[in-house]
């Protein structure tokens, strides 16, 4: 039986001069990061109610909704800042009409309105809509008060910072400090670009996006650590080879693995993006973007940074080396 293995077509010893492209990559990355920060500063993020507080209800009116009528009702009720959005039903649900998502911004919790301001707003909107568009089914309702959203915001930032710190410590412990610094720089790069793309697309930024970012952190790190591991090994193996060449060789050694793993992950995530339903679209988008950026950064950011950080040979670098070459 003859196997048709596509890996046979991947070059066994690729010699792509990645390290030579480091100047272009550095310029590209810097520009992209500046653009991201600029976008974030000017356009900001489209925060979901997890972080802003407020109310979101998704309703099924039994027919295609009339967004204008709903908008008018919201304005009449004094929730002019609300949002109305059509939601397509899932592909195989047999439902032939759209659902509609109604968002109401956070209501001030003053002494006058009381701490139940959000609940009162929710009740007012449900009653008002029943008057204007008739009966409907509520598919879900999310209400987040100002205190909880503030806590979620803090927790979100804290979790990213904490995860980055822990990872830095681990790599520092396992490798030389330059590796740790390089990996974390690459992670910052990925996180900033992800925030940039969310600012650009204005896709809702909520708790699950934070989860996605943390997973990107994990994934990108996965990639970086694999390359680093090979660098460490090759440094021992080829004691005389100049550092740029060792880096290049290591990236090429791990290239087929990088490509294959990125492909399988992207395949799974693409299925999730198109078929996972509305609730996971933003999340899978973030992940797809993260896999692309993370793969790029482990090749073009994390490794060249070792040159800039002046990685010394010898020292703590250890690890198993094949007995014969």
């Amino acid at each position, binding site marked *: *039986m003859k*196997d048709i*293995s*596509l*890996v046979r077509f991947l070059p*066994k*010893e690729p010699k792509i001069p990645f390290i030579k492209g480091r100047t272009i990559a550095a310029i590209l990355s810097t520009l992209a990061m500046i653009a991201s920060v600029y976008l974030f500063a000017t356009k900001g993020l489209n925060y979901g109610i997890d972080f802003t507080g407020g109310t979101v209800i*998704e309703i099924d009116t039994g027919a295609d909704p009339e967004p204008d009528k709903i908008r008018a009702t919201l304005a009449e009720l004094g929730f002019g800042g609300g949002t109305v959005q059509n939601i397509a*039903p*899932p592909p*195989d649900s047999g439902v032939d009409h759209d659902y509609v998502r109604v968002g109401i911004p956070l209501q001030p919790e003053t002494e006058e309105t009381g*701490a*139940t301001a*959000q*609940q009162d707003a*929710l009740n007012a909107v449900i009653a008002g809509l029943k008057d204007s568009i008739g009966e409907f*089914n*509520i*598919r*879900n*309702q*999310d*209400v*987040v*008060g100002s205190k*909880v959203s503030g806590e*979620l915001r803090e*927790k979100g930032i804290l*979790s990213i910072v904490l*995860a980055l710190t*822990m*990872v830095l410590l*681990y*790599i520092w412990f396992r490798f030389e400090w330059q590796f740790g610094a390089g990996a974390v720089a690459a992670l910052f790069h990925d996180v900033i670009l992800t925030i940039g793309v969310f600012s650009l697309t204005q896709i809702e930024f909520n708790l*699950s996006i*934070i989860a996605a970012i943390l*997973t990107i952190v994990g994934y990108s790190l*996965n*990639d970086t*650590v694999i390359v*680093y*591991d*090979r660098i460490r090994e090759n440094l021992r193996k080829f004691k005389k080879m100049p550092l740029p060449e060792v880096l290049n060789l290591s990236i090429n*050694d791990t290239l*087929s693995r990088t490509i*294959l*793993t990125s492909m*399988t992950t992207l*395949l*799974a*995530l693409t*299925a999730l993006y*198109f*078929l*996972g*339903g509305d609730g*996971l679209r933003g*999340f899978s988008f973030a992940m797809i973007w993260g896999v692309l950026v993370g793969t790029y950064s482990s090749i073009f950011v994390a490794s060249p940074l070792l040159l800039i950080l002046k990685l010394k040979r010898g020292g703590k670098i250890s*690890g198993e080396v*094949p007995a014969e070459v």
Partner: protein
Amino acid sequence: MLYFSKWKTLGIIAAVLFGFLLALPNGVSSDVREKFPESMQRTVNLGLDLQGGAHMLLEVDLTSVLEQALDNELEAVRSAFRDAERLQTEYLRVENGAVVGRIRKAEDVERAMGILNDLSEAIDPTALGSEKTTRVEKVGERDFKVTITEANIEAIQKRTIEQSIEVLRRRIDPTGTTEMTLAREGDDRILLQVPGAKNVGDIKSRINQTANLSFHMVREESNSERAMQLAAQGKLPPGAVYYLQQDSPSGLIIQKRTQITGECLKNSSEGLHPTGGYPIVNFSFNIKCAKIFGELTSRNLGKRFAVVLDKEIITAPRINGAITGGSGFIEGSFTLDSARELSLLLNAGALPAKLIIVEERTVSAELGNDSINAGKIASILGLIGVAIFMWMSYGLRFGTIANLALTINIMLIAAALSLLGATLTLPGIAGIILTIGMAVDANVLIFERIREEAHNGRPPVNAIETGYRLSLAPILDANITTLIAAVTLYFVGSGPIRGFAVTLAIGIVMSVFTAVVVARLMTATWLRSRRPKKLPI
């Protein structure tokens, strides 16, 4: 590296089989599952976002509870001083979170301090060396200050939250049939989760009611129109209070003091009036209160008493005869439903503090179902896509090994979720799909290494052995870092995010096991049976 002792091989196969048995109940329909032995009934717990239900975070208004505690302390001091002969104060009030007062005569100070100290009791009388409820301080010559101790504040808060949880449990689930969660969260919050809740509005209205029941005598002034006008303006004689009557524009002036409260209630049920046939609420008191109620009614024949619920008078009947049996009924303008609702509330008791819904997430069963279906389709298609890709990349033999490892991996995730009783959420499904994509990574790493070593001229067995040996460090490094991210996510994240972290972390651990242990065993078995001259990779 490739040699597995017989025991090791058996151990690995046993672990995989055990995983298969644990995962199996998830893969069959519920009819088939019922025929399994009891130990194999356990399935993955579906989160509220997948099965539908209500999730609410309730904040307990502890400030008002502490204010109430101070007021009670003030009343206790006042009545203790009144009972002690000729002990008079210049003033006595609550100020800056403390009860403060000044004794009129200097010679009484010593005696007063003694009384105050006696009022301060051990928080937990059964525990030796338990802290006191209050701290008594003498300020200056004749002034004193009584504060509630930190330990007591903590005890009061704890008690308030525990009571609230108990009352909520009885109110929302009087028959104890739903699998709801009620748990303390943080310092002042209660987490309420009701899976499959249909009527969220109903749950919310039960949370918001306070159900403070009490019986008061109606005062003579209620018959005077002028007194009623003054009362409506808030000008009341001492010891009296003006409450509105249900379904009536006017209210009644009643005595503030009551000896019969909701705590007297032994049982309450809805019923029909014995002669009128309209809905009523039956009640019966405990023995102590039945006696008090009997005396009260026999002493006040012909007078009216008011049944007050949450500062509203439900009914104010005239006492026609002494009620000594300790049971009676409340008439009002009830429907059968509202009578049932009221008796339910009375049985559950009053909430010790106001509860505010600070976060609410409810998902209908239909939406949950849609999410499960979408997740299933995405998982299956993702899995098929990855499997085809692996076969195309590594050919039949190594592709099959990788895909078998992947399948075992997913099975083990399901097994671990069932075993740990962890909850699968929508983001959790995303975690599994991500794992499907990443799980092959360890195998890819190993295979690429083998390919490289074979290309360097090593014979097959040697190449495979070296490949496995050299990939171990990168696999561990790479997965430990992802695991760190997942663990951080679990501890800092909240709600559904935790579900994602759980599946991700389990997925990572299982994928390392399947790639490094299970797949290696498969490779070794294949190698031993075939002894190939050249690797098909």
